[in-house]
């Protein structure tokens, strides 16, 4: 029966990889249930699906990180028995995982060549050759950095590029990229696409997972759609429409989606109130060199800038995480902001860009994760008021439609997008005056993204002020009332909505650099 | 054959103590410090914290500092032989104090001058002798509280006692467990053994600290130490003598820690060229209810 559906696509070559009837259960939770995937040599194949659809799990089964509960995997027609990532690599499958899987404490070189180090005559590692090779590989991505330094000292973007460089350098038959572009800027994405095209030309297949549908149309040949642990369909990309893909992904009618629109954010409509927060010429050891901006009530202020321009640093400084070496951050009531606790007490929330490292407490339940920041307020005689806690948590699970087996499920078992919603709930539960959102929709599927954005919009209408950092121009341009553009840790200009266009923003950000000519949008 | 010692006003004397974790060792070290004043010593005292290897290293560092004479209570019979050999090679006469080294390898008069001290096996035997002579019942059910597992006083005190008590078939040792020479461990072990062997009526402890712990355990369990359970021990500490006076304990065989004065005397004789016997034996007394009160003031 399943085979029938595939007949329509036309199966004229032997597949490089064939996965059939894959099932996977985690401690009773079904993550995959009859998932299928076929990849042909030299094609770029995309997988799309909502958060928690099972994309990452499917890949991890292919690469031996997880063991499947059911199903078959074949490579070039022969059964493939892989139980460790190493075996996958040896079989010609190189992977860039969604959660960066590199070793930040070790040097860039080690992260690239580990396991395949060049040797001297005596069988010892030849570091000179290794560094040279690493530089050369990275150069293909336009990255020129000191490869002997710890990987962890570079930005997420650089780390992402290193991961890609490593995978590409492994002479693989299949390169898997699980949301590889989520922290790259447009120029870097261009480079990546060029590399993917080269790979394709040499007969290497690429499996590409992304929430950005535009990217699919630019580089992918076929697309597999997953929903609730199942493979829904596989199409040639050229034969699909975005709307069609989305409706299959969400399992909803195309017309219904069309009616709802694309972004839920819209800036420049409300009439902002008084100034709540004012950062003047702030400087820090982390790279701020004089950034200024203000935030008023009921306003969304965007922080724009290229990667490394200091947006995250500005947010951290405001939140009291990094000490200032100059300048001031003032609240309307003049209270000092020197620790996160003080900031929270003053009604500021901060949704971080690094969910895994700075956001979730993996072993704690959804409930405990949601109420983490508001514990002092739930305190009654030193204890947590469980009654109130439960009500509150249930409210946010419902309101944000968090997909969880229950409020007691450990958060680590949730998919990335749902974890993000939990974190958002953590801050919303505080009913903050100011919310700093650093890449609030990174790695979040279209449906969830839409939901998150509408929640934010609604809160703003109710009086919330938002400092929004996003690498998605569309999100910034449509969402922010004003955009403060940062460059090298300084604020260089400010754009006002309505009227901001993407090209204006790009122009302002680039300033001296070349303006990237692509735009990113999920739909 | 041992290195000679020239006669001087002041000597640089090394004393390499093995550990300081019990009152006996502390009293011994103090005795050497006190003697240093009266005997014109510049004393270097080290502490090996219970490690034989460190004790050898301590001796090494004393040799490096150029001591004239070495007093060494060897923690273990065999491991301290290198220390004795090294001192001899460096021309330093060595006196072993309170424990000796393996006589098959290092000999008095040849590798070291003499051993000053008593005999642990003998101490165990004398404890057994007293018990055999003074036990009044028909059947002696004995619990033995051993010292630190593997340490030479524990091994020797066990051997001396066990061999001697085996000659009298009124006695049976029903349990023998380590109490680590400590009061708290002695008490806990006794509490447990008392549960498993309620018929016990004799306790032999390898030192007084464990004996006191055993007395506490007996009392907590509602037994009457001294009346329905006879306690036999070794050391002669103040607490033990008090227990004897109070009628809770039968006997403790003395094992005196006050070696300082003897060390001074023997060393001066050696420097004067007198012949020193290979074993300068210390006469250990036996404290019972007859003499405990007379000696309690000199106990430590």
């Amino acid at each position, binding site marked *: 029966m399943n085979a029938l559906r595939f007949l329509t696509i036309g199966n004229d070559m032997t597949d490089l990889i064939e996965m059939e009837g894959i099932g996977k259960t985690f401690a009773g939770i079904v993550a995959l249930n009859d998932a299928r995937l076929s990849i042909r040599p030299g094609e770029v194949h995309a997988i799309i699906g909502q958060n928690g659809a099972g994309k990452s799990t499917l890949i991890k089964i292919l690469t031996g990180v997880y063991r499947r509960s059911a199903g078959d995997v074949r490579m070039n027609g022969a059964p493939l028995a892989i139980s460790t990532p190493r075996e996958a690599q040896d079989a010609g499958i190189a992977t860039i995982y969604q959660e960066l899987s590199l070793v930040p404490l070790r040097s860039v070189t080690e992260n690239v060549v580990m396991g395949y180090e060049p040797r001297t005559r005596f069988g010892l590692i030849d570091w000179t050759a290794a560094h040279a090779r690493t530089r050369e590989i990275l150069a293909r991505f336009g990255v020129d950095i000191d490869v002997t330094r710890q990987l962890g000292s570079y930005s997420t973007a650089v780390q992402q590029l290193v991961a890609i460089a490593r995978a590409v350098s492994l002479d693989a038959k299949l390169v898997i990229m699980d949301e590889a572009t989520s922290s790259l800027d447009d120029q870097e994405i261009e480079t990546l696409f060029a590399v993917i095209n080269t790979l394709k030309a040499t007969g290497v297949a690429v499996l590409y997972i992304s929430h950005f549908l535009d990217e699919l149309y630019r580089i992918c040949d076929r697309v597999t759609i997953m929903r609730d642990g199942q493979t829904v369909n596989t199409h040639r990309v050229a034969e699909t429409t975005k709307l069609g893909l989305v409706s299959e992904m969400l399992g909803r009618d195309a017309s219904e989606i069309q009616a709802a629109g694309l972004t839920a954010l819209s800036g420049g409509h409300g009439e902002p109130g008084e100034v709540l927060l004012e950062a003047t010429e702030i400087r820090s050891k982390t*790279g701020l060199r004089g950034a200024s901006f203000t935030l008023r009530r009921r306003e969304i202020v965007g922080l724009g800038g290229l990667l490394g321009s200091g947006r995250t640093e500005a947010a951290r400084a405001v939140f009291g995480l990094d000490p200032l070496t100059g300048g001031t951050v003032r609240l309307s009531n003049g209270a000092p902001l020197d620790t996160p606790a003080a900031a929270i007490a003053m009604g500021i929330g901060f949704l971080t860009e690094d969910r895994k490292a700075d956001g979730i407490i993996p072993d704690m339940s959804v409930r405990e994760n949601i109420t983490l920041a508001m514990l002092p307020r739930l305190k009654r005689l030193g204890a947590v008021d469980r009654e109130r806690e439960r009500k509150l948590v249930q409210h946010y699970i419902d309101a944000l439609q968090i997909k969880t087996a229950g409020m007691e499920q450990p958060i680590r078992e949730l998919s990335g997008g749902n974890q993000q919603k939990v974190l958002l709930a953590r801050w919303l539960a505080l009913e903050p005056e100011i919310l700093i959102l650093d890449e609030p929709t990174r790695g979040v599927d279209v449906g969830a993204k839409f939901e998150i954005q509408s929640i934010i919009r609604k809160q703003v209408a109710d009086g919330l002020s938002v400092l929004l950092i996003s690498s998605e121009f569309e999100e910034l341009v449509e969402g922010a009332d004003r955009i403060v553009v940062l460059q090298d840790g300084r604020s260089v200009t400010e754009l006002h909505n309505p009227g901001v266009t993407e090209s204006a923003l790009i122009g302002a950000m680039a300033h001296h650099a070349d303006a990237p000519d692509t735009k990113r949008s999920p739909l | 054959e041992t290195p000679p010692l020239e006669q001087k006003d002041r000597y640089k004397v090394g004393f390499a103590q093995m550990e300081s974790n019990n009152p006996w060792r502390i009293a011994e070290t103090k005795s050497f410090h006190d003697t240093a004043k009266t005997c014109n010593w510049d004393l270097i005292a080290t502490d090996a914290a219970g490690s*034989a290897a460190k004790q050898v290293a301590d001796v090494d560092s004393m040799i490096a*500092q150029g001591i004239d004479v070495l007093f060494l209570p060897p923690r273990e019979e065999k491991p301290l032989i290198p220390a004795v050999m090294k001192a001899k090679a460096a021309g330093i006469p060595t006196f072993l104090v309170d424990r000796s080294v393996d006589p098959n390898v290092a000999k008095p008069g040849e590798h070291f001058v003499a051993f000053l001290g008593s005999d642990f096996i003998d101490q165990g035997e004398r404890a057994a002798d007293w018990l055999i002579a003074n036990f009044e019942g028909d059947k002696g059910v004995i619990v033995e509280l051993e010292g630190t597992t593997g340490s030479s006083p524990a091994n020797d005190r066990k051997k001396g006692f066990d061999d001697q008590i085996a000659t009298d078939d009124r006695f049976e040792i029903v349990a023998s467990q380590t109490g680590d020479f400590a009061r708290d461990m002695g008490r806990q072990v006794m509490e447990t053994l008392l549960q498993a062997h309620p018929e016990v009526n004799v306790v032999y402890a390898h030192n007084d600290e464990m004996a006191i712990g055993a007395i506490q355990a007996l009392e907590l369990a509602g037994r009457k130490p001294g009346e329905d359970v006879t306690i036999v021990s070794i050391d002669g500490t103040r607490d033990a003598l008090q227990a004897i006076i109070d009628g809770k304990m039968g006997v403790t065989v003395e094992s005196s820690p006050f070696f300082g004065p003897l060390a001074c005397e023997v060393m001066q004789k050696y420097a004067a060229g007198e012949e020193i016997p290979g074993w300068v034996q210390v006469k250990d007394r036996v404290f019972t209810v007859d003499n405990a009160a007379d000696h309690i003031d000199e106990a430590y």
Partner: protein
Amino acid sequence: MSDTFSIDLRRYLRGGGHSFGVWVALVVVIVFGLMRYENFGGAYNISSFLNYNAMFIVIAVGMCFVILTGGVDLSVGSVAAFTSVVAAYLSPFGIQVALPGAVLAGLAIGGINALFVVALRIPPFIATLATMLGAKGGALVISGAQTIAIDWGSNFTKLGMEKAFDLLPWSIFITAAVVIALWIVLERTSIGRTVLAVGGGEDAAGMMGLHVNRAKVFVYILSGGCAGLAGVFLASGFGAGQPLEGIGWELSAIASVVVGGTLLTGGVGSVGATVAGALLLGLVFNILNFENGRGVISLSAYWQMVIRGGFLFAVILLQSQLSRQPKGPQG
């Protein structure tokens, strides 16, 4: 991430890395000793100091590997005691049998640790705590709770008591060879780098396709072997197989490794700095003994403990000031 960035830059500029502090402290302590005490720098003291500390250096280096993977090996002291007994029993057959025999015994116990940690997935702290108890019990059982005499007639005692090339005891040369070999293993072989990567992030290393389990098995066996060698030194240089030795050795080895700037969470560290750490901690004992000899203050044993703790405190403070170690996991 940005805070790691600034910290790392500082470290990078210094060039000395995490281990900067230990070298400074080592030099300071040696200069202090040389200036204050006669004969401190004499051949006899240097030779006997190194001979005694050879045991701790090999153990610390083995421990360094284990800690680099983010684990710990509490069994080293007991294992050394155990293998010293084995070596003593084998000593009549000469060093050519006793040395490999005892090291093999150490490797075997290391293998048990590896089995517990890798196959049974028991946390290293607990697994090696159990082996520590087990090895101690085993040493007492096979020795009948006695120290075991070595054969003074065979060439076994040469190792710890005779000088090679008329210079220093053999044990020191062997230690130097082991240290250099392990330094090369860590810096220049793929198993060594895998060890570092595993400590830096076990899951990530696994996903990179590195042989995580192989690296872990390797470090526990290696540490067991190092402890085995230390046991040989103990028997040969200190006259007997000693089932009661080795108490607290694991903690001083850990301290040496950490004083050498290795992160206990794994991933960063070096063999050289570990050796420096072990020497530094050993020097404290040596200096205390010399201080006693000056007779100005005769330090009681308790004060010595207090001073050692205080010294460790000082070095740790120095270390944390010079190379502010990032706390916790890094993003």
